[in-house]
Structures are given as C-alpha cells and as structure tokens.
C-alpha cells in the first residue's frame, strides 16, 4: 500500500470531559472520567454513560440541518479548523466525516412523535435524518467547497474517514482535509448495547479484571490533514505525522471478534507495514479497549503477539465508547500524547485481567520520546477493522 505522507496541522475534540481538546488533555492527564446516569434519555433501564455537557454541542443558525451528532461534530470541527488556522494553515477544502448514527436522533424524535399521534408537520430525512446530515452541517458552517464524504462503519467510522482523507491528500484531490467524526448518544444505541448485555450501570474498565462491559459516551474528534511535503516547504510545524493505516475484515461474526483477534492482527500488521515501522519501533498502543469481555481479550491476544510487552492504554475508561466518534477522539488523544511526550494511563484499570496478556500504562502515564510512534486501533460491528499509525513531528508541540 502506498505511503500517504500526511501530517496533522490541527486538532479538535469534544467529549463528556469537556468541549475542546484542552479539556481532553486535562482529562487524560488526570484520569478523571465524567460518567453518570443519563440525563437526556428517558429509558426504562439503569445505565451509566458519558454525556457531554450543553456547551459541547455547537450552536448554529442552520435549523434545517440540526442534529445532536451534527452539533457535536461541528464543535470539534470548528476547533480543529481554528487550531489549524492559528498554525498558519488555510481553510479545509475537503471533509471526510465518520459517524454511525448521523441524524438518528432526529429520526427517533420524528418516529416517536408519529407513534404518539402527533406527527411533525415536516420531516426532511435528507437534511436532518440521514447519515450524511452531520457532514453537510459541518461543510456548510465551515464553507467547505470541495469533496465531502460520510463514512459509516460503526465504531471504525472515524478511523476509516481519516484513512480516506489521507488518500485525498496523497492523490492531490485536496490540500487540507478535515477528517474524523463523531456520535451523540441516542435511544437506538443505548437500547441496542444494553440488550446485547454489553453495557449497564457499571463503569468500564478496559482490559481489567471482572470488567463489566462498555460505557457509552458522546464524542467527536477531528484532525486537519495536509501534505507533509507542502507543510515542510512552507516552514510550518506539524503536530504529528500520520504514517500509515491498515484495514481488514474479520469475516467471522457481525458482533463478535474471533477469539484470537486474527482480523485485528491483520489490520495492525498492515498499518505497520504501510507506515514502514517494525513493532519494536512503537512506543505504545492506543487500543480500542472497549471494556467488553470478548473485544478486550481478542484485542489483547493480537497485541501481545505483535508487540509483546509494549505498553497499551484505552481512552474508553475516560470518555466512554463514543462509537463512530471513538477513533476520532482517540486520534486526537494520540496526537496530544505525541505533542506532550507522554503516554497517558489506562483509565479504569491499572492491572490487566488474566485473559488480557498486555502491559497497561499505569497511573500518571509514562514518558515517550519526541519522535515516538503510536498505534491507534479500532474495531467494529460487521468485523470491520482499521488501524492508524502516528509519529511525533519532532518539536511540533505548542
């Protein structure tokens, strides 16, 4: 696979921790999650979630395109574009947005109103309800006049979006692509993960003993990608480099990985090969680490075969599983880690379970060099796997 040779020149993130990347950085340093019972959803079961505060949902004047996922994405996308601008970058001329719910909250609202005998006067599925609604909102707000793409591969949506965006840079289709994605909680996801017994009232402990399952959360994360060559020629400093990506399919089961994590292993090895890095060159792994029994055991199995004792962590003990936004938020966390020279701790568990033969990064995190290499893994329903490899940009932090 051709090397993409792209760099990150801006970041933006929103989650239950707070409305920007600075809040995420504080959370990662302090390992202080903000989980609690749902305040927004009237469900008939007990569930703990990471709900974002009201200031995490961007205000905008476009009522015809509104959705909670759209507003979360817009918050992070605006921050990312502004961050890139501060660093001398121009506005994005392309957008690849990953989401697993899109405008589903709007569909739910309309559907439930119909069922209650109070149908809305108008419902425009194409503008507010469809999967592309958040991308269209972000593109309109940021006045993007170039290619727009929505990727929807469940929990790998943002990672796949980042990979496709890198291809746009490499092929010359765009100069600056806004990539990433997000998902707001909704009735569909809360009820679905609960009925599969993957979530509940207990807080997630990725790779930990007696882990109770995942904790769902709101979240969005975006990167601005540009050509490494072009940024270097302009004398600007990048935040990090996206060295490569790897994708694979499990071809096994719709909601469960193979026990040995074979699909995950193929994606990780493919990403390392694309990045031109050996497993020994990797400083740490920002793992998918949902906190479910099956995922963590399968992922740990793959990681231990490839990396041995290389330390790992998961962001999900801090911000929860933000589904289509997870790999966007985790990409931002990886870039923050590289900029600040620290691999953050695995919030929620410092000791790995017996079925997870991995070394978890403990309290306080661990230092990493300026030119560190980080692998960020993402896996999804449908057996979809996508792995990204980032590297420090040697002094790019600010």
């Amino acid at each position: 696979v051709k090397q993409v040779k792209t760099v990150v020149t801006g970041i933006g993130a929103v989650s239950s921790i707070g409305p920007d990347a600075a809040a995420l950085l504080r959370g990662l340093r302090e390992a202080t999650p903000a989980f609690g019972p749902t305040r927004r959803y009237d469900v008939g079961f007990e569930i703990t979630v990471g709900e974002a505060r009201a200031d995490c949902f961007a205000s905008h004047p476009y009522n015809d395109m509104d959705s909670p996922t759209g507003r979360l994405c817009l918050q992070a996308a605006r921050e990312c574009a502004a961050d890139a601008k501060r660093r001398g970058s121009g506005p994005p001329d392309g957008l690849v947005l990953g989401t697993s719910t899109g405008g589903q909250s709007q569909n739910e609202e309309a559907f439930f109103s119909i069922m209650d005998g109070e149908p809305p006067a108008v419902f425009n599925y194409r503008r507010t309800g469809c999967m592309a609604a958040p991308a269209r909102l972000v593109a309109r707000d940021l006045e993007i006049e170039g290619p727009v793409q929505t990727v929807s591969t469940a929990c790998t949506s943002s990672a796949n979006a980042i990979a496709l965006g890198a291809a746009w840079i490499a092929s010359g289709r765009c100069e600056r692509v806004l990539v990433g994605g997000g998902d707001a909680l909704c009735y569909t996801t809360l009820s679905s993960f609960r009925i599969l017994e993957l979530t509940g009232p207990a807080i997630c402990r990725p790779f930990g003993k007696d882990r109770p399952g995942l904790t769902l959360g709101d979240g969005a994360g975006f990167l601005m990608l540009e050509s490494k060559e072009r940024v270097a020629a302009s004398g600007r400093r990048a935040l990090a480099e996206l060295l490569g990506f790897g994708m694979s399919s499990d071809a096994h089961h719709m909601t469960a990985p193979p026990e040995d994590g074979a699909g995950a292993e193929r994606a990780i090895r493919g990403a390392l090969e694309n990045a031109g890095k050996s497993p020994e060159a990797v400083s740490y792994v920002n793992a998918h680490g949902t906190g479910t029994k099956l995922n963590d055991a399968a992922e740990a199995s793959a990681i231990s075969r490839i990396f041995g004792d290389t330390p790992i962590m998961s962001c999900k003990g801090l911000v929860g599983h933000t589904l289509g936004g997870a790999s966007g938020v985790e990409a931002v966390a990886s870039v923050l880690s590289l900029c600040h020279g620290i691999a953050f701790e695995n919030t929620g568990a410092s000791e790995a379970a017996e079925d997870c033969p991995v070394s978890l990064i403990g309290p306080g995190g661990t230092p990493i060099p300026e030119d560190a290499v980080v692998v960020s893994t993402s896996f999804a329903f449908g057996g979809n796997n996508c792995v990204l490899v980032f590297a420090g940009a040697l002094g790019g932090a600010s």
Partner: protein
Amino acid sequence: MMRCHIHGIGTMSIGPDAPFADTTAVMETLPIKDYVKPKVSRRFGRLSKMIYIAGSRAIEDAEVADPTAIPIVNATCMGETNASLGLLEQIHSTKGTLISPAFVPNSVHNAPAGYLTIGLKNRAPSVTVSQGWLSSEAAVAAATDFLFTEIADEVLVLCGDECDPNWVTRLDELGASHLARAVERESLQEGAVGLVLGTEAKDADLGSIAAIVVRGKPDAGTINALLEKNGVTPGKEAEVRVRINAGGEPLRRAAAEALSRPVATVHLDGPGPGTVQAASFNALAAAARDPAKKELLVLAAEVEDLAFLHWQR
C-alpha cells in the same frame, strides 16, 4: 482524476414494469440461496440480500480470481431500514427494555458489507459510505482512493437501498398522511448494483468511470468548474442525464447551460429498473451493455452537494 476501469457488473433489481406495491412480493423470492447457504443468510435483512446478490454477480461477471481478497466499498443512504424501524417501534413501546437483539447488527450501515465478508470469507479492507442519495457516486470516489493507494488493483463497489410500501400504509394508519404522501413523491424503488473496478482495463468494452461528490451549487459555473477540476470534458456525442430525485429541474437547466446542449431530465430514480442508490450505476450498466453508447455523464445534486458520474467506453 484517476479513472477506474469496469471489470464486471452485477445487478439486483425488480423488473422494469413492476409497480412499487409489488416490491415486497418480488423481494421475497430473492434468489439468495443461489449465492450463499441459508445457515449464513438467515440473519440477512432485505438490503443485505440484495447487496449480496449484486456483489456475487459482479464478482462472477468480472471473473475475480480470489473473492476472499477483493476489498469492498459499500454505499447506502438508508441502510437496513426495516431493522432500524423495527428497533424504533420496540424502543418506543418498551422504553428500550425489550428489543430484538437480531435487529441490532442489522441496524448499522455496514451490515450488508459485513455479511458479504462473512459469506465470501473475505478478509480484505472494507468501507461503507453514505452520502444521501449521492452515495453511489461517493462509493466510486472511495473506490478510487482504494485503487490510488494501492490497497489492491481491483475493488468491489456496491450500492443499494431497500424500501417498503408498508411504510406508506403505516404512516397513513398513524395519521401522518402528509408524510405518507411525501414518501410517495420520492417514487422509491429498491435494488442493488455491484461493480468490480480496477486500475487496468480488463474488458475494454465495459469502459471506465470517474465520480465524485463535492459541496457545491447546482449552477452552470460550478458544474463546469467541477468537471474541469476533475479532468472530465464530455465529448459532443456524450449523453448527459440528470437524476430527478437528486437535484431535478434546476440541475437540468444548469447542466444544459454548462454544457451548451439540451439535457434530458431522466427519471432514473423512478419506477423501473432504477433504484434510489443504484440509479447512476444502473444507467451506466445499461450504457456499457449497449454497443452504440460511447459516453455518459450523470449529474445529481442534493441538499448542498453536487455529484457526477462519468462513464466512457
């Protein structure tokens, strides 16, 4: 812009004269058993069945050497809609406490691609894109990315959507007749199309394609700029068609002005072998199979997106 060569085509759509109301009956006879064991397909929704059949037919048509290794780009606007609506109905009636677990995996947009990878034992990269009614064009753009980055030299591209006449009936029953009429006006049809695309020409007769979705206005200046930027200069004999559902009459006028020629408004999305997502692909499939056709440009616009799909032999 890189062009992709068509190596094979597979379609799964109802007959040209079948009315919307017959869709369910037709789809119940889907020949899915010809392509995958019932043990594997028993959890498939209708869309997954259609996508599976179209994809399998495209693989056969292209004589793909190793179906377990071909990357997949899937596109759908609405996904497995009946699974999603079923979930919502149960969530509404039970506050989410009692829903069918079987609906859950089918409710993600990448369900059809996931089932296809399982059925084919395909472990290659797979991406699902969804850009409203312009998802098929978005899929070709993503496939181009796959080919450009040399993930493989051949990609299976799929697009499809399901629809159900029962939606209209149900909306009427629930007192939402104005919404039922709005659904009817969309003239939805269901179906799927699969294309095998490659970097090199395998069967010159099938031609090559390029496509993209951008945020842009459906006016003459933007259309010209879009085509020029992407290296597409339609020849004088090129057939130009506009997807009615996606853009409609304003786009037709703009296209005629941009290209300085009459442009027919063709109801690609309406009753007939065309379907919501597969409309553009069906148009190019028909052109590719007609020796008299040399070049086709399909334009579409939706909300604030503008798309084209350009085929030439």
